[in-house]
């Protein structure tokens, strides 16, 4: 069930990407999709009543949450930030060229 909520979050972002005309809204949709996928990875690796994967002195190694998805998502978050920044840079450049963020108007101006 909790996986399905995660997929609903994903589909909201997908809807934003597919239907919105404003470039900033599309970037927001991409960010939401990014969050949903990161959350899904961590949910898959969770162990019920587990401990965080940081060992402490004199504690036994048992019931530790899977560290592998966390390591993968850690890189993914930073890449998501860089991708967002690149998209924003491209959007600003488009605004400078056409004077609008609306993709339909951009199409008309070009055609």
């Amino acid at each position, binding site marked *: 069930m909790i996986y399905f909520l995660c997929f609903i979050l994903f589909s909201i972002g997908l809807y934003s990407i597919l239907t919105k005309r404003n470039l900033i809204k599309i970037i927001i949709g991409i960010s939401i999709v990014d969050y949903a996928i990161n959350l899904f990875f961590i949910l898959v690796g969770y162990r019920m009543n587990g401990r965080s994967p940081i060992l402490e002195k004199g504690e036994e190694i048992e019931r530790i949450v899977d560290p592998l998805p966390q390591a993968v998502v850690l890189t993914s978050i*930073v890449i998501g*930030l860089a991708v967002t920044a690149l998209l924003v840079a491209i959007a600003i450049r488009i605004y*400078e060229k056409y004077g609008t963020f609306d993709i339909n108007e951009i199409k008309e101006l070009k055609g």
Partner: protein
Amino acid sequence: MINNRDSQGMSVIVKTITRLTIGLILLYGVYILLHGHITPGGGFAGGVIIALSFIHIMLAFGKNVALEKLNQTWSKIFESTGALLFITIAFLGFFGGVFFNNFLDKGEHFELFSAGTILLSNIAIFLKVGAGLFLLFVALVLFKIGGRK
């Protein structure tokens, strides 16, 4: 000496609070970075926090003050240094036989100087992420719309 009455930047309240807290934010970033192998944190988090501290200066005092502290040329040099340092550590792993081998002494557990190359790799990743994100933000700030002709 930073002139608080400079017309650039935000009001005097924001400037004063920034003056008092910015050093501690930087210190916290370095702490997160250096203890990445014992406590939560590491190169990514520390790099982003340190980049945010310089962005904080830029938002509060205007771009001239922040670029005096760390200008674009130095950011580019730091970013390239981070990438180069990381790949150098990877190649030094050939001393142990394979790429990315942890060739240094592991040290005693839970100490600051332990875990071999992980601390060095953290510093390399920090240079890469921190300088890169600051450079990105500077590029976004300095870009002004020229207007259509």
